[in-house]
């Protein structure tokens, strides 16, 4: 268990903050971060020329699969979607898509990184946190409150049947 905690802890910057790296020679962005650039003609060219780079967390679903047979600790979330997300900056990231029923996830869906619990080491153990993805295109509003403050900023009128049941 101690080794798991240590491994998770070492990966904290990239799991918490989407901290990648960028080659200052050819501007290619990497996630997870790399210390040399495989895109440059010789790796030596980029040696010592990689800089930390923060991904925005915005992207779209490039491909996905729906998991019905849960990994340990994910029983509560079945069925859940694991997706490859093409980030705005380029790198492909793997992550769970949350806050949308699995059958509504599609290729091209705009998503953004959200901070969530990844797993718990039992009831008494450490809780691990990191990024997942949630829809950046809002599903249609459930319904307007009786005393609405202002039209919603998305500007799209809300069809009543847009209400979703999980």
């Amino acid at each position, binding site marked *: 268990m101690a080794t798991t905690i240590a491994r998770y802890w070492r990966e*904290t910057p990239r799991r*918490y*903050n989407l901290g990648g790296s960028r080659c200052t020679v050819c501007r290619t962005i990497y996630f997870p971060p790399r210390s040399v650039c495989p895109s440059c003609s010789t790796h030596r060219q980029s040696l010592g020329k990689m800089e930390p780079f*923060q991904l925005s967390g915005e992207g779209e679903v490039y491909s996905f699969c729906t998991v019905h047979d849960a990994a340990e600790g994910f029983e*509560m*979330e079945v069925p859940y979607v694991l997706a490859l997300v093409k980030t705005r900056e380029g790198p492909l990231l793997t992550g769970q898509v*949350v*806050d949308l*029923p699995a059958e509504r996830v599609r290729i091209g869906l705009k998503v953004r990184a*959200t*901070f*969530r*619990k*990844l797993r718990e080491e039992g009831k008494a153990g450490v*809780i691990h*946190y990191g990024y*997942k993805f*949630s829809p950046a295109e*809002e*599903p249609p*509003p*459930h*319904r*307007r*409150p009786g*005393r*609405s*403050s*202002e039209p*919603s*900023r*998305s500007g799209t009128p*809300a069809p009543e049947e847009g*209400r*979703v*049941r*999980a």
Partner: protein
Amino acid sequence: MDVGIVSYGAYVPRYRITPGEIGRVWGADGEGMGASLNVKRKSVPAPDEDTITISTEALRVALLRGAIDPQEIGAIYVGSESHPYAVKPTATVVAQAVGATPYLTAADFEFACKAGTAAIQTCMGLVGSGMIRYGIAIGADTSQGAPGDALEYSASAGGAAFVIGREHLIARIRHTASYTTDTPDFWRREGQRYPSHSGRFTGEPAFFRHVTECARRMFEVAGTQPRDYQHVVFHQPNGKFPQRVGKQLGFTEEQMRYGLVTPYIGNTYSGAALIGLAHVLDHAEPKDRILVVGYGSGAGSDAFDLDATEEVGELDRSFGQPVSEFLEQGIELPYAVYAKFRGKIHMGGS
């Protein structure tokens, strides 16, 4: 020297459940319960959400909106009664997740539903004395009521984060006042899963007395009266208490229209008054005067007298999600899924 709010952000989980659906399971008149509490829906956190994730989401929006360098943050205080760990701070995970570590101080606050407003006051002191440039005050909760208990119809999840500073203020905090006594209206002992409350005692001697006395104290300190404010926000354990206390104090529905969010998302405990304030700030015009009166069981009230500055219009308040989206949107759950999400189903084992 002026101290106030530089930026802010709110977050409410996406799932919702109605009082009618809860009542259906317990053989109670859920719709009647919802009507008497003035709660139409309440938010439900996903199984992978807790006070740490809610605080982080709210703070990330606040920092991006205000273009705040996280390394300039000198303190982070998270007020909650549902910190995921009994020992190990919420604030350190949040600090790491927004890139504020390591040169800052951090701590978790606990005072029932008013720990977030206590965090704002602490940040005001640190910022006003020049000890730090930015202080972060967060109020967030994922509170639960025991199944079938009256609290289950309203207890929900959400939070808001405020960046307190001296420059580029969108709202100056002109005064703050507090009113605190030892009152046993609501509590949860160490190791207990659900809180206990002393029924009707939670009303008059607790919420109403503290909020009223604290508001009156604020009028004295600030030399103001209800008609001087464009907006007022009260702690809102349900949709009825704040309406009633507002009326008693002489406020109109118009002054409360943005500050009252519980009818649409439920009682977010430490988040409640702060999400109300975030909703007010989403709509505030320069020079608008705002009164906030929080309440925490146990018991105490903190009040703030604020006025919006010219800069409120310059902040990109549409970045992230404005509070109105949380009030209008959501995915409605049946009780069974809600019970699964909230860990109310006994799974075997110990």
